[in-house]
């Protein structure tokens, strides 16, 4: 096991990782920008190093400064969390060159699964359902038009290196396809330095279902079942739950097994997530693979009892997984609400500033992962998520009831948050009956 782990992140995930590090008896080193000097992860860590100004490029995205901080504190491993440099292959390589273990997948696996085209080829080879479309990159318009005719409109144009919706276009006819290919390619080139695009069938009304995978360096790969993240807004997940409430045991087992098979084929280790769209016929279409721990990992921890973050560290240290696939059983139902500091009255604009009152919910089946508290000043420099409220109960209905109870009990002022929005969504009839798709929330809010 490592002696000292540097956490190259901030906010709730830095706090989450430090908890895992400490439970393993390892020292934790926090890094922070000047905007985060009073943040909880700084207080929790055994050591903390200021690495620069608030701008991410000056701190959390600044590789030389992160490596330097690891060197001066004699950290022998770095945990990237999610976002920032978590899926940056170059950072993983630099860590390796400096003899610092990057707590994540191998650079090779990160490449195979991170690039959308190679990922899709790997999926097809391993019988993981993908959207009908170009086997590889679209090099010219003619090829694009030919494929579009084969699979039929509407089609989705995606950037190989894409993510977060950038470099994506929907085309409903030949004209919009041609312009779409050019726009998407240009956008991708600008955003990711790689203009490669490909075409897929556009899935009209779908749910977001993703499979949690966990592998070790000895070739063992298991899945921890799936999550349902259909409740989204502007491509941001709002509410996540596990297991997916509309899958039968057979359907569940089929898609989860396929996802694990594909990751095993890629020689993948650490935690990863295979994301799918599922249409009304419960047909699955691979979206992408996230080669890191996910924001919503806690719902899976609640139903499986597996500490996913702790496992990423054990795996990086070379330990084999302590369980086999058959040991991973689903117990009850879990739900997560992302608590963002946003003002509904201001079209959900992030609101930074001082939190004066903060009384967290508690009691049975309630978990809160947060870096905030009374007296915490939310910096304007980063994303607006100040916590994740998770509930666990015997079944979905009770998990929702418990969540409503916990949300009602949560006292935060004067900061405006998404708590009222969550309360509204959790009482919505369509949500309760799972009559929803990934555009449901935006339709409901008229966004």
């Amino acid at each position, binding site marked *: 096991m490592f002696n000292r782990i540097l956490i190259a992140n901030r906010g709730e995930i830095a706090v989450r990782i430090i908890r895992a590090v400490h439970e393993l008896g390892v*020292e934790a080193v*926090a890094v*922070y920008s*000047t905007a985060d*000097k*009073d943040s909880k992860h*700084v*207080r*929790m*860590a*055994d*050591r*903390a*190093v*200021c*690495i*620069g*100004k608030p701008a991410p490029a000056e701190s959390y995205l600044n590789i*030389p*400064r992160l*490596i*330097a*901080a690891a*060197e*001066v*504190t*004699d950290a022998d491993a770095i945990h990237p969390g999610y976002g920032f440099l978590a899926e940056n292959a170059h950072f993983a390589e630099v860590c390796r060159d*400096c003899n610092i273990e990057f707590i994540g997948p191998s650079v090779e696996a990160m490449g195979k699964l991170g690039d959308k085209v190679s990922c899709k080829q790997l999926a097809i080879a391993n019988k993981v359902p993908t959207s009908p479309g170009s086997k590889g990159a679209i090099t010219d318009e003619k090829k694009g038009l030919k494929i579009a005719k084969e699979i039929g409109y509407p089609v989705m144009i995606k950037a190989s290196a894409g993510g977060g919706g950038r470099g994506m276009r929907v085309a409903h006819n030949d004209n919009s396809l041609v312009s779409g290919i050019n726009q998407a390619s240009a956008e991708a080139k600008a955003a990711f330095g790689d203009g490669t695009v490909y075409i897929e069938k556009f899935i009209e009304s779908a749910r977001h279902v993703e499979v949690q995978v966990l592998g070790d360096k000895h070739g063992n790969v298991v899945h921890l079942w799936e999550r349902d993240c259909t409740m989204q807004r502007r491509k941001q997940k709002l509410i996540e739950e596990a297991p997916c409430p509309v899958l039968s045991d057979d359907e569940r087992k089929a898609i989860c097994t396929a996802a694990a098979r594909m990751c095993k084929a890629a020689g993948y280790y650490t935690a990863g997530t295979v994301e799918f769209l599922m249409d009304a016929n419960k047909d699955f279409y691979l979206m992408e693979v996230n080669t890191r721990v996910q924001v919503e990992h806690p719902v899976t921890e609640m139903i499986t009892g597996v500490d996913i973050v702790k496992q990423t560290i054990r795996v990086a240290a070379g330990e084999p997984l302590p369980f086999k696939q058959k040991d991973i059983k689903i117990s009850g139902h879990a739900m997560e609400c992302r608590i963002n500091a946003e003002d509904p009255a201001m079209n959900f604009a992030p609101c930074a*500033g*001082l939190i*004066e009152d903060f009384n967290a919910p508690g009691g049975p089946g309630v978990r809160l992962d947060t870096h905030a508290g009374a*007296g915490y000043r939310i910096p304007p420099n980063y994303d607006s998520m100040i916590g994740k409220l998770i509930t666990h109960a015997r079944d979905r209905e009770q998990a929702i009831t418990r969540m409503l109870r916990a949300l009602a009990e949560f006292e935060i002022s*004067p900061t405006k948050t998404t708590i009222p929005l969550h309360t509204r969504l959790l009482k919505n009839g369509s949500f309760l009956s799972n009559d929803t798709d990934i555009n449901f929330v935006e339709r409901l809010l008229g966004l």
Partner: protein
Amino acid sequence: MIDLKKLEKLITMMAENDLTEIELDDGTEKVQLKRGSGGAPVQVLAPAPLPAAAPAPAATPSAPGVPAAEASVPAASGPTIDSPMVGTFYAASNPESPAFVKPGDSVTADSVVCIVEAMKVFNEIKAETAGKVKSVLVSNGDAVEFGQPLFELE
């Protein structure tokens, strides 16, 4: 929004230092403190209770394994030359040669005052401001963090 914690700090300062009046403005600072019965303003105390001037809660990297909360950066009352990066502090270009600067030396903005090594790169740090070195706040070989005061000027 007026920060209660800050207010509490101020009041404690008041009681502890037997001040009779504190007046803040913060349309970008304007502190007035009175002491005793109508005493003269005490400027020295002004920065202390302001959050911005408070020492970082982080450990000085030069103290390995010390809980973040416990350690503290040496306080400097005067102007300082701060480290522009994370790394290891060296007072001289090599063990044999003398330190770039020592207390009493005068420096210009371009004067090299020390080296901070990060990722095997030895970065020459310039004073960035003219002045007379009053004291060196870190020792040779210390790990320093971004913004950490290295030298105090008079």
